[in-house]
């Protein structure tokens, strides 16, 4: 354990701070949880600035448009800390930079890396994910969307669901069934689909939050070059699992939890009921403290896992628990915030007296969606017990998978 901040790092921290001070005006406002709109010009410019200074795409090689720094966990932590402290935008997030790019780095051809990484990290190309299907749900290997070979192309028919940002995405990375004869898991390929291709119909999918954070995407005779397959044909399942690992990290990022917790603390110091501040209620305070312990635990757990990853160590069961634990904490933070607001905690839709733009009710529901999404909590527990602890699969699923 060495968390010491040597002179080098202290001066790095100073650098970050002075960057943030100097550029405070240029940073776009930080919005709710997840940006669902097309990136603004402000954001694109900010992203460029971040990459240029190594505060985004930091470890992505220069040849692909990144900053090209060697992985340095401590610097990454310092950047996180300082940006969080300043409450300033971390730049582009979303499925391009967070999910596709790491996957391409691992599995993409040189051409694909050269072609896609740069615009993706700069926000010029916006990506959406085409994994889930109405009939597949937690059983991702059950993807039914067919891609049939036709000359140099695939012709794709099927339906995707839960595709965030699909309505303003340029591209989709998707799982499609290219080898109908192969087994459930071996018949899938990972393919990149331009969203402007004829035959793609995007329909917004409303959720319980009242917002359309997701879409359904209908694909009818969509023609895509075979060259757009990432990795080998039939390897889609394996590759998608790489991406899902990144998604899991993204979904449960402890930095987001810390942000929520800070918001909750501020709320509790402000909100009063019958003249008593919420933070002065022993019961509410105790719930806050229990959550704080969990958030701290996940924060250091993330650091531990990152260290392990940098060292190339396998994390075992420990590396599989972040999503399960993190989404639950997020949901509980929101639940406490709602209780702190008491009767006013139910206000929504921009109502008067609503706190923080309705963020807490949104988070309460959205985090429940996250508990379910990207593999329900039950699937996560299957994975932890089977892959992490080596427990046997259920006899039934073993034969059918």
């Amino acid at each position, binding site marked *: 354990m060495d968390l010491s901040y040597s002179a080098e790092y202290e001066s790095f921290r100073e650098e970050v701070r002075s960057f943030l001070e100097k550029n405070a005006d240029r940073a776009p406002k930080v919005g709710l949880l997840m940006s669902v709109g097309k990136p603004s010009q402000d954001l694109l410019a900010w992203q460029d600035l971040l990459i240029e200074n190594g505060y985004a795409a930091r470890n992505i090689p220069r040849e692909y448009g990144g900053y090209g720094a060697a992985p340095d966990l401590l610097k990454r932590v310092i950047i996180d800390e300082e940006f969080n402290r300043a409450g300033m935008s971390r730049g582009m997030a979303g499925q391009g930079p967070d999910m596709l790019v790491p996957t391409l780095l691992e599995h993409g051809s040189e051409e694909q890396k050269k072609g896609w990484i740069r615009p993706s990290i700069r926000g010029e190309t916006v990506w959406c994910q085409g994994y889930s299907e109405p009939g597949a749900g937690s059983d991702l290997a059950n993807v039914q969307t067919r891609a049939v070979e036709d000359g140099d192309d695939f012709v794709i028919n099927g339906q995707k669901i839960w595709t965030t940002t699909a309505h303003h995405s340029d591209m989709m990375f998707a799982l499609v069934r290219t080898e109908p004869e192969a087994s459930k898991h071996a018949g899938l390929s990972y393919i990149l689909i331009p969203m402007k291709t004829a035959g793609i119909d995007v329909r917004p999918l409303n959720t319980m939050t009242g917002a359309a954070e997701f879409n359904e995407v209908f694909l009818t005779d969509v023609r895509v070059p075979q060259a757009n397959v990432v990795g080998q044909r039939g390897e889609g399942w394996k590759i998608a699992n790489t991406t899902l690992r990144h998604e899991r990290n993204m979904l449960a990022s402890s930095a987001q939890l810390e942000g929520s917790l800070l918001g909750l603390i501020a709320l509790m110091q402000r909100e009063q009921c019958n003249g008593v501040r919420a933070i002065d209620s022993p019961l509410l305070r105790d719930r806050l403290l229990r959550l704080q312990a969990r958030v701290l635990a996940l924060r250091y757990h993330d650091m531990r896992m990152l260290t392990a990853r940098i060292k190339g160590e396998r994390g075992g069961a420990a590396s599989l628990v972040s999503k399960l634990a993190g989404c639950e904490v997020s949901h509980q933070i929101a639940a406490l915030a709602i209780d702190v607001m008491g009767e006013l905690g139910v206000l929504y839709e921009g109502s008067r007296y609503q706190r923080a733009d309705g963020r807490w009710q949104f988070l309460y529901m959205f985090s429940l969606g996250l508990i*379910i999404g990207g593999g329900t909590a039950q699937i996560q527990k299957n994975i932890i017990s089977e892959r992490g602890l080596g427990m046997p699969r259920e006899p039934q699923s073993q034969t059918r998978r």
Partner: protein
Amino acid sequence: MDFGLSDEQKLLEQTLRRYLDEELPITRVRELVAEEPGNDGGHWKDLAELGVAGILVPEEHGGSGLSILDAAVAAESLAWNVAPTPFLGSAVMASVALTTAGSSAQQARWLPRIATGECRIGVAATELTSRREDAGVSERAGRLNGKSLMVLDATGADHFLVPVGQTGESLALVDAGARGLTCERLRTIDRTRGFAELVFDDAEVADWLGERGGAETAVCHMLNAGRIALAADILGASERAIELAVAYAGQREQFGRVIGSFQAVKHMCAEMVAELEPARALLWYAAHALDGQQEDAALMVAHAKAHLSEIGREIVRTATEVHGGVGFTDEQNLHYWFKRVGLDRQLLGGPDQLREQAALLQGWNTA
């Protein structure tokens, strides 16, 4: 001695559910509340004919003259279909306030119209349990000043019942069109109920119920009756959420089998039922105790509302999880029950507060 619902109560439940299944299915509820939260689309009149609006109104005033336990049965059925009605405000809280605090003349004036569903009364009771934003209503020379947040069943209300003073020591009925009264809609997660903020600026009072300064008993009874109705609402909504989850789990296939055959899913359903069923008995008993004005009534009401709020939150969450991604969609409708339970939890005192009240009633928190 017979612990359970009577045949009449079971019939009431059946009648209501049949009516609601036919006339107010979730598809219809969606349409109505999309127009305006709490919009009952005229169904309140029909429900009044079924005896729901006047359920607590004495027969001499045209009501059914039933008990709070009966009202709980009705509330449970209304929640089963997430029906948007002014049941809580008019049929329960206002009716109880009038029968407890109102003079004979006042009862004769208001109750018959409540029973027909003609008169709809919103209730401005939030500040009795949780005062925020400097809200509260006070009297000056017979007129009202101040504001009240989260006024219940404000949609379509022609009158408002307003506890006045720090502890609601007086009870005023105010015409929705009264001079000096402004009503501002508040939107919540749950569209099946309509809320508003009322601002009083020397607002006129239509009627003072009972003696001014002597309404505390009535206010207390009214709050407890409201809590029973809310707890029953949580019960009905949770019960339905479980039913929907079990049904969904029996149809949806994943990994080559219905998900209801997976132990994890089955156990989630079993846990929901194991939480809910004992709570049902607690609610029945609390309603019964309140009907009999038993010594333990207030304690039981506090426990019933607090306990159902806690387990209801878990149940609707678990039911959503059983549904997987589909449960998160707007289209599936499950969230109507999810949100209704979420709302009920916060009204007329959250669980922490009610438990502290239960402690007080037992002389425990003396420090």
